[in-house]
């Protein structure tokens, strides 16, 4: 058996409570995105495209839809004889069972799994970011710098810097300082939540942290600062492509709208960097005679009789005659009835917007229609974001 040089571990257990109604029944990484994808397709496709064939996926909150979606990993070419995809929910041990109490704890509880794979490096990823990135360059960089740990960083606007883990680096890229969500950021280099560690190095810190009763078992809050305090060789790997944390309704909506630009920063149509997804067996979409479609993404199996502008339409969506959908995201198998009007909305899966109904806020904020909802005429107006 070939040895696995680098094992990827995707943290996919978060609740995503800031996504409100969208994550009531599914984990954040399983939230639909971009017309045919789910958020987790991005890190999984990145792994495949970077030549990483062994991936552990740590799940915890509402994992059923996510597990079902990942299946045997075949959609991302991860159904391998050696390696492939491993779904890792918390499990019971001799002395009882424990939930994953933090990002670091989730990895700590799977030390046995990682030892079984026996990798040189471990790549830690989040299951809730939208980006395309070749991890193999980052791993090369990590080797070249003879680093203990390498953190993926990206420049963010200064006014947003306090939402992230912020880093200061020396000229050679070595990290000199790290602040988790600082009130007064010292730089605008933000951690992307992507880490490469030498496994033996990470393991010792995880074991040590597990003994620390004050620790909240988090990479950003505990592990990284401890490593830095011990003067470990930690480097920042700068990424300059499109990267978006879609942890909130606003950012999720924005990331969808970003795809509609004339030349989007994240190009889903790039033949050299396919984003893979589980494909429904649906025919091409159908645009009827008097329909109008502009500045939009439309997926297979949709039937458009009405008007669509500046929107992302998923598979199997039906938009009836006279209906108008603008600035919105409409998730799979939702029906928009005749003369209905949908503006600046994120409509979940299997919803029904009835004849003549209006979905949209007057104050310009984004409205969410949760999975399976039926919206009838009138009552929908002014409904608050869940």
């Amino acid at each position, binding site marked *: 058996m070939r040895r696995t040089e680098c094992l990827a571990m995707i943290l996919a257990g978060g609740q995503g409570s800031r996504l409100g109604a969208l994550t009531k029944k599914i984990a954040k990484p399983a939230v639909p995105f*971009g*017309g*045919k994808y789910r958020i987790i397709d991005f890190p999984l496709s990145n792994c495949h495209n970077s030549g990483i064939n062994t991936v552990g996926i740590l799940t915890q909150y509402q994992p059923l839809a996510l597990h079902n979606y990942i299946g045997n990993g*075949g959609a991302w070419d991860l159904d391998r004889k050696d390696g492939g995809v491993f779904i890792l929910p918390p499990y019971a041990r001799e002395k009882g069972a424990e939930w994953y109490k933090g990002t670091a704890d989730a990895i700590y509880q799977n030390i046995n799994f990682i030892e079984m794979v026996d990798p040189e490096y471990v790549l830690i990823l989040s299951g809730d970011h939208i980006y395309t990135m070749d991890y193999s360059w980052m791993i090369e960089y990590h080797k070249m710098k003879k680093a203990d740990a390498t953190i993926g960083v990206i420049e963010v606007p200064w006014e947003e810097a306090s939402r992230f883990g912020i880093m200061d680096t020396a000229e050679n890229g070595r990290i000199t300082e790290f602040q988790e969500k600082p009130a007064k950021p010292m730089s605008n280099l933000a951690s992307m939540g992507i880490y490469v560690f030498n496994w033996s190095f990470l393991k010792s810190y995880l074991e040590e942290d597990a003994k620390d009763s004050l620790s909240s078992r988090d990479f950003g809050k505990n592990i990284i600062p401890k490593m830095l305090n011990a003067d470990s060789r930690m480097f920042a790997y700068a990424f300059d492509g499109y990267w978006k944390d879609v942890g909130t309704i606003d950012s999720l909506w924005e990331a969808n709208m970003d795809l*509609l630009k*004339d030349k989007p920063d994240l190009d*889903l*149509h790039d033949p050299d960097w*396919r*984003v*893979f*997804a589980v*494909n*429904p*067996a*649906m*025919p*091409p*979409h*159908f*645009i*009827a*005679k*008097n*329909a*109008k*479609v*502009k*500045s*939009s*993404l*439309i*997926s*297979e*199996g949709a*039937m458009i009789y009405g008007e669509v502008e500046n929107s*992302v*339409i*998923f598979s199997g969506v039906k938009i009836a005659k006279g209906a108008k959908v603008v600035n919105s995201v409409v998730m799979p198998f939702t029906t928009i009835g005749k003369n209905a009007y949908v503006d600046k909305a994120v409509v979940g899966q299997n919803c029904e917007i009835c004849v003549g109904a209006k979905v949209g806020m007057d104050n310009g904020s984004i409205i969410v229609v949760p999975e399976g909802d039926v919206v009838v005429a009138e009552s929908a107006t002014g409904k608050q974001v869940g």
Partner: protein
Amino acid sequence: MKTVMGIINLQENENSIKEITSNRSLASIPVAGRYRLIDFALSSMVNSNIQNVGVLLPKKSRSIMDHLRSGKDWDLARKRDGLCYLPPAESINDARNGDVQSFHYHLDFIEHSTQQNVLITGSNVIYNMNYDEVLRFHQNTGADITMVYNIREQEELTGGAVLETAENGLITDIAIASTTQPKAKVSMGIFLMNKNLFMDIIRGTYARAGTDFLIDGIMKNSGKYAIYGYQHEGYVATINSTASYYKASMDLLDPDNWQKLFLDGSPIYTKVKDEAPAKYKQSASVSNSMVANGCIVEGTVENSILFRGVKVGKGVHVKNSIILQKCQLEDEVFVENVICDKDVVITKGKRLKGASNYPLIVEKGVVI
């Protein structure tokens, strides 16, 4: 349908549709925006829980093998049974060349299969069917052989075998494309029978120098066996000429047909390509069209089918046309009544127009 094995016969006459079959077999002709002809017969088998499928390959088999590969996209990559390729018989004598010879060459495969019945289909008919009902009919009537037909207008016979049936479904006559009636029962090229009977017919026909399964195997033996006709009600289109290909494609732009073929029954599977959703830019204007994933549309498209990965530039006008995978129509291009085969590039400002009853065909990979 655990008791039924399937064989899809791809050794079909493709002479009348030469332009699109010069580098592929009839079965791998792209249809309906993202499918190949074989997908319909194969998906119907899979959806009917037939798990042992032999594909009798034609001489030009590369495109079909590239399409089907392990059979995984149809859930046919199995430990036991699943998809099995049956290459054409190595012919010593070309005069004997025909599907009977190929079936004869592969009798081993059929004999060693565990299922007791065999369902034989061609691959040039578009439909979405559950063969379970055919099996039930076959068992209820006690037929030796069941043939599936649908009812077509006289002008749509397109060379198929016309059946005459008695009230109970017993077939009394089979004739190739000859009827005086306004409507006719036309065979869809689907046969269900006991495996041993099938092997007997093949051995007997081969021994008597027969070459064609329908003519020499079935029609010449029609007095000997109880052959019943099962009527299929759904959407059916037979592809055997450029005109029928164009017409069937355009018929799918009728939402009723689209709904019947794709959404009312079980799904039709095809090779997964992982294309992004189609992108419509600000200047796009599309009506009455079918658009597959991976397309980028900036121009005007009406009454047309765009396959996966087609690029339609600014100021382009596409009308009544079928544009196959990965074609590029650069800015200001005008096409009407045109079929563009795969990978065609039409450079800026060019105008192409075919006749409304006979489309202009641009061959694969051509740059105009």
